[in-house]
């Protein structure tokens, strides 16, 4: 009896382990969603750095010398990269980080770009912790987990190059073939689990923190935030929301529900769609109303990680279908331009060249 039970238990554990192994090292999951997360996170980094480019010396350069006590207690080793550097060195590293973020968005040598963006982002943004945003942590952790993942399998220059090389009968690339397929898939899937868990935990913790507050229960919590000068970049829009009881309640409950129930609603395919759409709408509104575009974009990036690859395929088909006439038109106009260039070459350039050769040079 005990032996049968033991064997059954061992068999169940082995079966569970086999199932986990198959999921982990079989194929890479959510590769399109990872690509969307890569693009959104890269854009968030690029946008933040670009919008602060003109005041970078004041924000994180020599002008931030007063923030040294806050910097001193930070435990990020990356900060030493910009420790006491001149304005020129700061500009160089700043631009390198921006270029790396752009390469990351485009998926051009995405893994290397991810590493440089990750280090550069911490080195730059961490220089002035006093004006840091909670969204910075989300970006930093997303970039960290994306290091394990293959985020450039789709919608990237890496993917286009891989397709070209494979079509020509060559290896994909040395960079991508460095690891065995199972290990590459395993690392990707572990990174996906970590990033997904972190996203769900962050959303639910934010929701739990709010739900105990009476003003969130009454749907008026955002009223006070909308009154603060630094949170109302567009006063007319803020007043519209603050004065309209229903709009204010909709936005307040939208924020609360999209956070508190984010995790549980992901478990069903229909409610998952609902909560993702709600989170997207809420974050777009927060980006505009409270002028937080970059943290909202990074939140959108990790939220869209939960959209299935099948849905992303459908989105891709729709977008490509809609873009087809535009691309066809562009290609046709391109041929027209090339034809025009040829006409000019034969009718103008070559006769002039011949005239110079035969008349002036007499050859």
């Amino acid at each position, binding site marked *: 009896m005990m032996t049968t039970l033991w064997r059954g238990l061992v068999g169940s554990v082995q079966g569970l*382990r*086999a199932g*986990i192994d198959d999921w*982990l*090292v079989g194929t890479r999951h959510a590769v399109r969603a990872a690509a969307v997360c890569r693009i959104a996170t890269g854009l968030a980094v690029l946008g*933040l750095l670009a*919008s*602060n480019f003109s005041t970078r*010396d004041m*924000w994180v*350069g*020599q002008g931030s*010398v*007063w*923030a040294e*006590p*806050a910097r001193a207690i930070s435990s990020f080793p990356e900060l030493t990269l910009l420790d006491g550097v001149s*304005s020129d060195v700061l500009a160089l590293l700043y631009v390198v980080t921006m270029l790396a973020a752009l390469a990351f968005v485009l998926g051009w040598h995405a893994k290397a770009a991810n590493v440089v963006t990750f280090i550069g982002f911490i080195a730059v943004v961490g220089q002035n912790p*006093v*004006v840091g945003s*909670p*969204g910075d*942590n989300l970006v930093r*952790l997303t970039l960290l987990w994306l290091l394990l993942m293959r985020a450039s399998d789709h919608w990237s220059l890496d993917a286009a190059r891989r397709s070209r090389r494979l079509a020509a009968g060559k290896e994909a690339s040395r960079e991508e073939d460095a690891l065995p397929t*199972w*290990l590459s898939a*395993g*690392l990707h899937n*572990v990174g996906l689990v970590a990033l997904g*868990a*972190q996203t769900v*935990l*962050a959303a*639910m*913790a*934010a929701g739990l*923190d*709010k739900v105990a*507050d009476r*003003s969130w229960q009454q749907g008026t*919590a*955002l*009223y*006070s*935030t909308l*009154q*603060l*000068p*630094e949170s109302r*970049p*567009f*006063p007319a829009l803020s007043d519209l929301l*603050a*004065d309209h009881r229903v709009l204010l309640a909709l936005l307040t409950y939208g*924020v609360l529900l999209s956070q508190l129930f984010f995790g549980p609603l992901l478990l069903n395919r229909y409610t998952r769609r609902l909560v993702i759409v709600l989170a997207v709408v*809420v974050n777009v509104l927060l980006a505009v109303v409270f*002028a937080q*575009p*970059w943290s909202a974009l990074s*939140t959108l990036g990790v939220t869209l990680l939960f959209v299935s690859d099948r849905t992303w395929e459908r989105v891709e088909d729709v977008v490509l279908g809609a873009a087809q006439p535009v691309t066809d038109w562009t290609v046709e106009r391109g041929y027209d331009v090339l034809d025009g260039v040829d006409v000019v070459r034969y009718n103008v350039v070559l006769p002039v060249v011949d005239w110079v050769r035969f008349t002036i040079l007499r050859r």
Partner: protein
Amino acid sequence: MPPTPVEDAVERPRHRWIVELLLVVVLVHSVALALWLAPSSPIRDAVGEGRLASYVDPYFQQGRDVVGIGTQQVDESFSVRAYVAPDAGGKGAATEWVDVTRDDNRANRHELAPERAHLIARRLATNLNLAMFNLSEAQRRVVRGLTADDLPSTVRPTLEGAGGRPEAVRFFQAYDQMATQFASLYAEARWGEGGRIVQVQFRVGRRTVPSYADRATTSLDDVAFRDFSFGWRRAFRGSLDARDTFDSYVKK
């Protein structure tokens, strides 16, 4: 026919334990994070907040506010003035107070992506207010009496001797130093051409947004700031690069 356990094992990579181990690490990390983010509970207390903080804080630094937006009910201001001595000699004079946060708010108006440099004054005000709240009443009395002649090394034992927590004293001193240096560089850029900046003073204001129920009768503009002026501080010179940066920023 389903594969036998032996065949099944052969099909899977031999060193898959590496990935399994990584998964376990990630799951343990997620549990630690969940406990850190969770409201107070017996499980969280059993693990210990200090132990969780020692894991999460150094690098992962995850709080309950990384996504979305929270409720803020307090408006804060940070104002600066300086004591300027004329280059030609003679008696100096104190300048008018300048509300730096008001200038920053004006600069951020209609900006979808405001520059972080325009958040500095507001954040200094928030942290100075927080630092004062963390101090005990006796310590606050000490802070009120501080002058430009008091060195940080002598202020610390006095504050610690007045009771309260040592971390609160460290936090206050850090932000007092940051505010002094920021105010000095700001003052140099703003009034430096009129003479030598000898001392600076800063003050923080605080006012609460009227409740939603009173929105028809009272607005934030009707509420006055409750100011707290810190004593005069000896001016910080800073490097030439730092002064140049402030110069171009303040006069922009």
